[in-house]
């Protein structure tokens, strides 16, 4: 069943069976399933948190109905399998926007809650879960509970990796926008110090993110392009249509196509591609938020073995000590790393017990899967652990159980709320019980 893969195509996993959940009014009886179950919608988690090797996959992609939309207050109620793409296509023309969007719109509402996703406005809006007013959770006993913020089960389910039960529907608080376009400013910066200076100044912008060249060495270490943007007032800009990728990577690329040389050249070109230090433009929202959605299955460029994305958050201390240490470690390893994404998380507390975002600097980098890569990532985990940071489970396929415990101090409280019938490849790996 190749459909039930994760985005990084690593590791491989085969579910024993698939159980479709098509209607919120009569979901299947989970207590009759013998194997552990795990909800699955779009498969956009990178590692094994959306995989259930040998278990039963609860396929919720047909749980894709909208339920109610209060256009005055911006409250949208919909089933868990609805994609953010679908919601944006509906609400943007009516002057509303999702409070938080990740780097792709092809994720489900259920997945957005289960991973308590974040976006380029974390410093202003916090995580997705902070804008969820309620959801209904189906437990394996058949019990259905409407959870609201403050409930212990709400806090366990937000960021709970699908392990507390099946979210049937949710209600999200949208935000008003003046139009479908984003006014963007792109600033080229020569190194990490310049980045920290820009990031310290993010208060006045709704969205900020940087693309960083982590193959550059010496004084150029951490050079990149800083992007900051705001919703632009209504003008003639064409709205972004709901359209699947125009181009899809049809095959797995031969191993090694993305190597240190090709990625180095790409990073160089990306950095040099912007000739001026500052560039201002107004673009459709999809071009700003979802640049890679135009290329379907782009992960296949990493070859048949798949890839891992490493995303961590570390405290934002003066001079950027921990981030600098991580960059130096990656650069020294010579491992082919693509452009990295760097962003400052703000101090809005994430509502979930296992939520990843917390105040500090977050870095995300893709690596092809090789033996040496995994050793490097283990080293990076050690740096993150020392600083009291965390690694993002939604992107993980390899962190150790000890690291997981260190990154998520509320683990015990979470475990008390978990539904024993629900499990994932990730959970079995990091929670040796």
């Amino acid at each position, binding site marked *: 069943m190749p459909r039930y893969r994760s985005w990084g195509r690593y590791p491989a996993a085969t579910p024993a069976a698939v159980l479709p959940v098509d*209607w919120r009014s009569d979901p299947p009886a989970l207590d009759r399933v013998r194997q552990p179950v795990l909800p699955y919608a779009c498969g956009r988690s990178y590692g094994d948190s959306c995989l259930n090797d040998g278990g039963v996959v609860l396929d919720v992609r047909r749980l894709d109905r909208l339920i109610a939309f209060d256009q005055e207050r911006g409250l949208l109620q919909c089933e868990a399998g609805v994609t953010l793409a679908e919601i944006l296509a509906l609400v943007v023309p009516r002057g509303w926007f999702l409070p938080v969007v990740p780097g792709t719109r092809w994720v489900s509402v259920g997945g957005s809650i289960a991973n308590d996703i974040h976006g380029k406005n974390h410093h202003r809006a916090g995580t997705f879960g902070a804008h969820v007013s309620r959801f209904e959770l189906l437990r394996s006993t058949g019990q259905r509970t409407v959870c609201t913020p403050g409930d212990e089960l709400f806090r366990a389910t937000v960021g709970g990796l699908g392990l507390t039960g099946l979210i049937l529907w949710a209600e999200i608080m949208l935000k008003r926008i003046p139009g479908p376009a984003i006014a963007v400013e792109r600033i080229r910066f020569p190194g990490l110090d310049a980045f920290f200076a820009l990031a310290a100044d993010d208060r006045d912008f709704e969205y900020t993110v940087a693309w960083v060249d982590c193959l550059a060495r010496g004084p150029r270490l951490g050079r990149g392009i800083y992007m900051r943007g705001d919703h632009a007032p209504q003008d003639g800009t064409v709205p972004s249509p709901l359209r699947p990728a125009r181009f899809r990577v049809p095959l797995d690329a031969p191993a090694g196509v993305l190597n240190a040389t090709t990625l180095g050249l790409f990073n160089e070109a990306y950095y040099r591609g912007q000739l001026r230090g500052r560039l201002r433009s107004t673009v459709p929202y999809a071009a700003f938020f979802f640049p890679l959605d135009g290329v379907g299955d782009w992960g296949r460029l990493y070859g048949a073995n798949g890839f891992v994305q490493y995303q961590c958050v570390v405290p934002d201390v003066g001079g950027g000590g921990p981030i600098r240490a991580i960059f130096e470690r990656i650069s020294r390893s010579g491992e082919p790393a693509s452009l990295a994404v760097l962003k400052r998380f703000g101090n809005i507390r994430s509502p979930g017990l296992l939520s990843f975002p917390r105040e500090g600097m977050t870095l995300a980098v893709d690596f092809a899967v090789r033996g040496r890569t995994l050793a490097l990532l283990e080293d990076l985990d050690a740096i993150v652990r020392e600083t009291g940071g965390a690694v993002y489970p939604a992107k993980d396929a390899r962190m150790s159980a000890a690291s997981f415990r260190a990154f998520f101090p509320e683990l015990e409280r979470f475990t008390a709320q978990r539904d024993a019938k629900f499990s994932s490849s990730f959970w079995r790996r990091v929670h040796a019980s």
Partner: protein
Amino acid sequence: MPPETSTRVLIVGATSAIAAETARVYAAYGARLFLAGRNPQRLEAVAADLRVRGAGSVLTAVLDVTDRQRCDAVVEEAWSTFGGLDVALLAHGVLPDQARCQASAAATIEALEVNFTSAVALLTPLANRFESAGRGCIAVITSVAGDRGRQSNYVYGAAKGGLDRFLEGLRNRLFHAGVAVVTLKPGFVDTPMTAGLTQGPLFASARRAGRDIHRSIERRRDVAYIPWFWRPIMAILRSLPETVFKRLRL
């Protein structure tokens, strides 16, 4: 304002994935929809979705299509609620278990009831109303399976093939009254109905099927394959002489 704002559409079998996707296209244009289906909770879930997506109004009626009197009543209700209809789409049906049908005449007849006779029970009052109105469109989802009887699926194929022929005659009759009859023949569509089949490259998404069906109805096509590529495939399959065809294991 979109051109189809006031389109009045009756959909029978509205909780099927293909019907619901077709209804979403109409809803986005602000159409008024009357949905009939067996399960009231599911019907209400589909109706709510269509309301949020912009449907002018959405009404529902619980209908088991094997209940003939109820078929009449629902047609009457839809017609009088909207003061006439512009489109009636019949999308109900079940994919019967061929092996079970072979073992039981009762199971076979039941499958023919749901997939053929019930459609006739709905088409008869619909045709008469559309004929007197002198305008509108009747669209019915049959199947590529109706194009040729295959050992693996001929009970379903017989029902859909019979329906094709019925619609052919109805089209001929209603043409003179200015009413269009659209035969829609989906191939493999990724829906709960086909969940038991192994998916291949010929599978289309329900969303695509819904869009194609909406377009075929708006263009008043006589016979539309959903998606289009089934037309040449079925042309080849239909052209095989019976002496050859009977030897195949299809």
